[in-house]
């Protein structure tokens, strides 16, 4: 018994000499690991101190939060169901119109910002930076500004979604236009096609499926965005949610949250089916 143990130990020592990295982490990697971990620890301590987070606030807050969650049950609509459904319709309308007009504005801008359509470097850089700046401002901030301009209601939300979607989609479109297969362009050129015909017959067939599937993705994400834009006064179900939270009507708050979750799930499923149909079978395309 003891002998076997010794043999094993000898074997282990031998292996340790042969393949040291199986037993010890290399010095360099250990140093990186130490720096990373100590950096994270220091940053955490700094954050807790700078943000003035202490155990007491957490403790009392958690107590209050669970009290609140207890009052969530049972979720009821309290006779407001028709208002809630109307508000959900507003949310869907905001997402639909926002995505639609964002798409319509993004297509020409995307072509303008694509290097292989407009070979000018200046236009390319200016447009791309412009898109980046617009995208850098969150939809919620745009919504807040449009509420100031257009007043409370879904119109402000629609405008906010149009602005951010135009910039984001235009950037994606420009990238997919730049990545088209050039042989189709050559083919169209060889038949004597003009610039418009080249775009119609060489670019559109290649980029349209990508564009459409992107637009559907954006519609899904806009439904999520539109459901919270109302918190800032831009219409939709978020406005109802905010009102219910302010008057502490927790069962209705919970009811609205469940409504949002179900709607988002349904929209996701429908959009996934449409995307599959459009991308897979060209014959279903309009």
């Amino acid at each position, binding site marked *: 018994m003891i002998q076997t143990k010794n043999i094993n130990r000898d074997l282990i020592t031998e292996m340790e000499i042969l393949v040291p990295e199986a037993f010890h982490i290399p010095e360099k990697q250990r140093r990186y690991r130490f720096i990373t971990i100590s950096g994270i620890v220091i940053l955490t301590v700094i954050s*807790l101190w700078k943000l003035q987070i202490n155990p007491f606030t957490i403790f009392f807050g958690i107590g209050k939060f669970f009290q609140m969650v207890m009052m969530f049950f049972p979720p009821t609509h309290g006779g407001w169901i028709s208002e809630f459904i109307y508000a959900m319709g507003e949310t869907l309308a905001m997402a639909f119109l926002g995505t639609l007009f964002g798409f319509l504005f993004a297509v020409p801008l995307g072509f303008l910002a694509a290097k292989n359509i407009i070979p000018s470097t200046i236009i390319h850089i200016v447009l791309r930076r412009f898109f980046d700046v617009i995208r850098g401002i969150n939809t919620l*901030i745009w919504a807040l500004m449009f509420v100031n301009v257009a007043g409370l209601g879904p119109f402000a939300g629609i405008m906010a979604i149009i602005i951010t979607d135009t910039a984001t989609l235009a950037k994606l479109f420009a990238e997919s236009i730049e990545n088209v297969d050039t042989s189709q362009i050559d083919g169209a050129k060889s038949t004597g096609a003009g610039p418009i015909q080249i775009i119609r017959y060489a670019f559109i067939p290649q980029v349209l499926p990508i564009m459409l599937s992107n637009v559907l993705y954006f519609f899904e994400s806009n439904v999520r965005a539109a459901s919270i834009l109302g918190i800032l006064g831009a219409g939709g179900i978020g406005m109802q949610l905010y009102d219910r939270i302010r008057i502490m009507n927790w069962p209705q708050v919970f009811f609205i949250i469940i409504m949002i979750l179900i709607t988002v799930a349904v929209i996701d499923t429908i959009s996934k089916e449409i995307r599959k149909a459009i991308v897979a079978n060209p014959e279903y395309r309009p």
Partner: protein
Amino acid sequence: MQTQEYQWDITLGLKTSLFEEQRNKQLAKRRIYTVVWIVLFAAAFLFSLVIGDVTMEKILNLPAAWNYLKETIPILRMNSLGYDVGVWYARGDIWVGHLVDTILIAFLATFLSVIFAFVISFPASRNLIRSTSVFFLCRRILDIARAVPEMVYALLFVFAFSLGPLPGVLAIAVHSTGSLGKLFSEVNESISMEDVEGIKSTGGNWVQTIWFGVVPQVLPNYISYTILRLEWNIRAATVVGLVGAGGIGMELMTAIRQFQFKQISAITIMIILLVFFLDWVSEKLRHQLIGGEKLI
């Protein structure tokens, strides 16, 4: 000779008519789909216009948005540029503090969510857990955490924890626990089981199997997802302040509500610069992790 040509013409005619027939059938099918799409689309469009309160009056009022944006442009004169910028960024030091708060909120939230997602992701992976009920429970927890938007959590937490950065941290942490947990468990499900079997065969318990068999395989992916998530969370942290959950968003909210136009542009520029810087750092970091040596 003549008869042969005649016959040939007949078969060609038959073939052509067959082809035409098929083509017409397909075109008809396609036309039906086109009509269906147009009808559905028109219905959705009209419904949206009515419900969405889009009126001619509102559209014609849109130039007001342009005037609004023009108001935010500060007065900068060449001969007194330093002074003008000083006036524009009079509250600059406070804003920088809030911007740092924003980053720290996102960092803490990411830190918390990585810990929670790490723990939950293993029982939420089909190949690592035998009990179906535990698997489904963990998956549902992650789904629910992910499905509710950050802003809704922020509203609820502001109510429970009062105004300040703490509700922001918690709101972002809960939401990104859901997202990261799902991504982590998907990574776990794609590992090679040979290492896991190896640890099991030496008598390792479940925790040891995970730690020595799974973690070394999935760690690079986890780190890359975490960096992406940190980037996303900083963007989220700039807006949770709009409902009072700390960070630069609170300042922006005040500026917008009080029509302090010059302050709106000043804060917005700071946010945009932060986002640009972030994109750059995150890209560098991920490239280094992908291309460079094993750092962690």
